[in-house]
């Protein structure tokens, strides 16, 4: 059979497959009926067979290109992307993530680096409040902080709180995610951002502790402190996970090691975003309010308890069906 006859006989099928592709592109494949889907699959297999035999049929190049493109399109329609499976999220968030984080060396490193630099900066700023804070943070920021905490906290009107909640979410979570992304640069980017954030925060804490306005300041930061600081460390740790996977590949190629690490790092980054959102809500509504200090301290203790429960109780390695190896 000559190519021209062969093409004439196959062209109708290819055109039909083309029409099915366009139909599915305009709506998802689930809305085709069962019969239509079966026909689509059958046409796809036939086009695959044609492509496989293109060489022996001696099909001309333009037909071969057309077939490549047609089979590619149909392949993408027939095997569509797998979206998020909400049912798996619960298991991921409550079972697998805590256990992974419990054993995560990068998270421990981020924790140690962050808190080490934080405490060092705080002690330094407390001991020499004239020179050290200015060098690290700059005069304007110090003056700004002093002005903010001059008066005792009275609580904002609810409008302002709404604005600040959104602002904190956008600002802090963006920084957290940028820290995560910068971790890809061999972990160095994440370390750099972590150290600089910790230094600035610690300096501010130490400086404010020397001022008479320290009561107001500590009243403000107590309530949302646990969630926010944990979220920062978590984001940095997840980023370093990615970066260090490029260096310490455990025998995989660098690309494969990166992909394996990213499969684990993304849930941690998303969890840190959740923590940032919680911290933002608390920071906007509870922290600046005029509630007594006891309430804010209780909120801080409660959030620390929740975090402790999550990381230690849920994360402690256990035997059984959910034990990770």
């Amino acid at each position: 059979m000559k190519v021209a006859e062969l093409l004439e006989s196959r062209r109708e099928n290819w055109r039909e497959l083309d029409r099915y592709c366009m139909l599915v592109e305009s709506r998802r494949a689930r809305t085709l009926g069962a019969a239509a889907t079966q026909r689509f699959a059958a046409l796809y297999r036939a086009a695959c067979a044609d492509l496989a035999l293109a060489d022996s049929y001696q099909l001309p190049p333009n037909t071969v290109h057309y077939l490549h493109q047609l089979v590619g399109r149909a392949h993408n329609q027939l095997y569509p992307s797998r979206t998020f499976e909400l049912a798996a999220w619960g298991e991921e968030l409550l079972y697998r993530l805590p256990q992974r984080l419990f054993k995560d060396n990068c998270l421990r490193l981020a924790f140690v680096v962050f808190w080490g630099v934080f405490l060092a900066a705080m002690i330094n700023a407390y001991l020499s409040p004239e020179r050290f804070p200015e060098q690290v943070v700059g005069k304007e920021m110090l003056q700004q902080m002093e002005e903010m905490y001059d008066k005792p906290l009275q609580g904002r009107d609810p409008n302002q709180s709404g604005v600040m909640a959104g602002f904190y979410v956008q600002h802090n979570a963006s920084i957290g995610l940028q820290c995560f992304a910068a971790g890809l640069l061999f972990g160095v980017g994440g370390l750099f951002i972590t150290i600089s954030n910790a230094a600035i925060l610690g300096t501010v804490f130490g400086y404010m502790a020397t001022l008479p306005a320290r009561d107001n300041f500590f009243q403000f930061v107590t309530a949302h402190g646990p969630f926010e600081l944990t979220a920062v460390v978590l984001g940095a740790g997840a980023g370093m996970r990615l970066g260090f996977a490029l260096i310490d590949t455990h025998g995989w190629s660098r690309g494969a090691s990166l992909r394996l690490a990213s499969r684990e790092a993304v849930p941690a980054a998303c969890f840190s975003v959740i923590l940032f959102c919680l911290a933002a809500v608390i920071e906007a509504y509870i922290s600046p309010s005029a509630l007594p200090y006891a309430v804010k301290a209780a909120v801080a203790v409660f959030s620390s308890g929740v975090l402790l429960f999550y990381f230690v109780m849920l994360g402690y390695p256990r035997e059984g069906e959910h034990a990770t190896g």
Partner: protein
Amino acid sequence: MPSESAPLDTRIEIVTPENIAFQYRLAGPFRRLPAYLIDVLLRTSILFIAVFAIGLMMGILGQFGLGIGMIMVGWFVLDWFYGGLFEAYWNGQTPGKRLMRIRVVSDEGQPINGVQAVLRNFLRSVDAMPVAFVVPTYLLGLLSASMNNRFQRLGDLAAGTMVIVEEPQRHYGVARVSEPEAIRLAADLPANLAISRSLARALSSYVQRRQAFPWRRRAEIAMHVAEPMRVKLGLPPGTSHDLLLCALYHRAFIADRVNETASSPFAANAPVAAGR
């Protein structure tokens, strides 16, 4: 026969579960950049519309602060989750990518899942790295894409994805030879003519494109293959090379026997003029 070394091209070969190998065309920066710009435009317009709508609603309700807060949260979500959610739910396409007809697939040709979509968009901030004031220059992403045989930027490398072009093409059928002299010449060729695969491929390439060339150029191109064939087939020396290749093509691809034309037996033997 497959060639020894694959030609340097932006095509990547995928083997599917049906055990078929087909080729995707990779999307380079000149397709991805417009798609990204369209997405940025879309995000900005959504933000503007949201500002108006929410501002209006919240103004009517008197809750300005809450409205601004919602807008800030919306800005955050648009910034970081727009690409991820679209690519997960739209089979690897965002609106910008859909307009430019490109798609994200995993680098074995399989569809992407939600984690890959979200990760590659989170890591976009690294690819945008040398940020000049507010404008991201994406130099790190370009560098990574140019050092890779699949145009993968850093986010693609971490997520194991690549971006392919998916443009529907038209198929105009097999090229036909329109000159009746060529068809008559095809009848003159010996009946047991065997045409090898490489010759068949060359013939189909030639016939597909010969319409674009003037006739002198056609004769010049056709000469290299047609002259040895003419000698081999024992045709008279004045035979037009272009028509000989067309005749060979007709014989190989279209038909073995020529339809009965109303031509005299002498006309079939007349040499074809060399000037055509």
